[in-house]
């Protein structure tokens, strides 16, 4: 019974990591709270601007390019990733803010 529990935790735990429906990322002090994220296809990232300046998340990764536009302090933006691949995200305004997203 104990072994079965461990197997269930491992299986469902792993699945949750690779097919996460939504991951929350905070922007504060001109930094993202995460540097690398793994998502399943159709998964999304909820970007929370908890900073005191405007941010502007975008990607120029071929086939995955997007721009969410200006995100003012206090705003939340949800972005969905519908294709598998490796996507590099950046704040256009503050390019030191970077995240690597792997969509499987």
């Amino acid at each position: 019974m104990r072994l079965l529990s461990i197997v269930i935790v491992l299986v469902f735990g792993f699945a949750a990591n690779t097919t996460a429906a939504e991951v929350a990322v905070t922007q504060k002090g001109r930094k993202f709270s995460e540097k690398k994220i793994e998502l399943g296809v159709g998964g999304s990232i909820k970007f929370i601007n908890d900073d005191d300046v405007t941010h502007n998340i975008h990607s120029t990764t071929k086939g995955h390019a997007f721009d969410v536009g200006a995100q003012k302090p206090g705003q939340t933006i949800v972005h969905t990733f519908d294709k598998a691949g490796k996507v590099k995200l950046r704040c256009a305004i503050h390019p030191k803010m970077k995240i690597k997203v792997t969509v499987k």
Partner: protein
Amino acid sequence: MLCGGAAAIAFMVTLGTSSWTTEAAAKGRAEWKTEYSRPGEVPFPEENPYTAEKSALGHKLFFDPRLSGSDYISCGTCHNPSFSWGDGLPTGFGHKMTKLGRRTPTILNSAWGELMMWDGRFESLEEQALGPMGAEAEMNQQLDSIVEELAAIPGYRTLFNMAFPADGLTIENIGKAIATYERTIVSGIAPFDRWIAGEESAMSSAAKRGFDLYNNKANCVACHAGWNMTDSGFHDIGLPDDDIGRGNVLKNVVKMQHAFKTPTLRNIVQRAPYMHDGSLGTLKEVIDHYSDGFTRRDSLSDEMKPLKLSEDEKADLLAFLLTLEGADPMVAAPILPANDQVPGAWLKRLSPAAGGKAETPECRTARLHLRRCK
């Protein structure tokens, strides 16, 4: 908005509650001071770590005009240490005195930078070092021949082999050596640093009031943040020219139209005139611009708000900016490796009179004295 032809991308914006406004407002002078401590060491990237040999080689390359197509422009011609690594001009001059479109940016504290150039078109200092060298309007060097030209100088062959034992003189290693040297160019200790470190008498009362304004009412800190007084970011600050800056690179990002990289404010008094187009002659004019002199448009940075500073407040802010001038070390002009005494490819190229043949000693003497060789 969507860009880049991305398919089926969706996002949603919501307004949530945040404590950011109250946190920002609650910060007093003592708390702000904690954000300006100088770093303990210079960061060097893993792919190009510091070595003394690389830095010494980069120092020579930086000041060597033979890196340009004309052999009379070096990196240091525009990035002149006497002008805090700028040139003191509204906009730079390049090959054959070509007037360039933007002011020469300083390379001071570039070790802490992210994207290079006013528009951020280069990802690293290593890339940036080669960019102006190969640009026709700037140094006008043929990058595919620079390795051959430097290899014709015996001293450089030795220096590259010492700095890069694995592969010696390559175009990539030229960029790495120059970038390594540039990362060693760090602003010196300023009165502001001494004040931050606890020396209360290092700054006047006016400058301290200016520091408070910088972080609060004047909101300079929104972009000129941290010890290096820059967020390494890109902002449209409402200058009324046609240059779209970062918008040339990120064509579909609204906030990047007319946006330019935030420069460091370290030693700023030494780098007039100001802004990417050199259009403002004094720091007083710059403060007036931010106070309420900027152009409103969609791309304007959200941090740009009319400040309505009083004349006393402007004077305090200026007093603070003057405390950012550091006691920078003297910069020695390096002794450069001498040309090969046996005329080689480099000398032949310089000597059309030799007609592609080996230059005679008489012709070399004539050329060096600006006389025609018969």
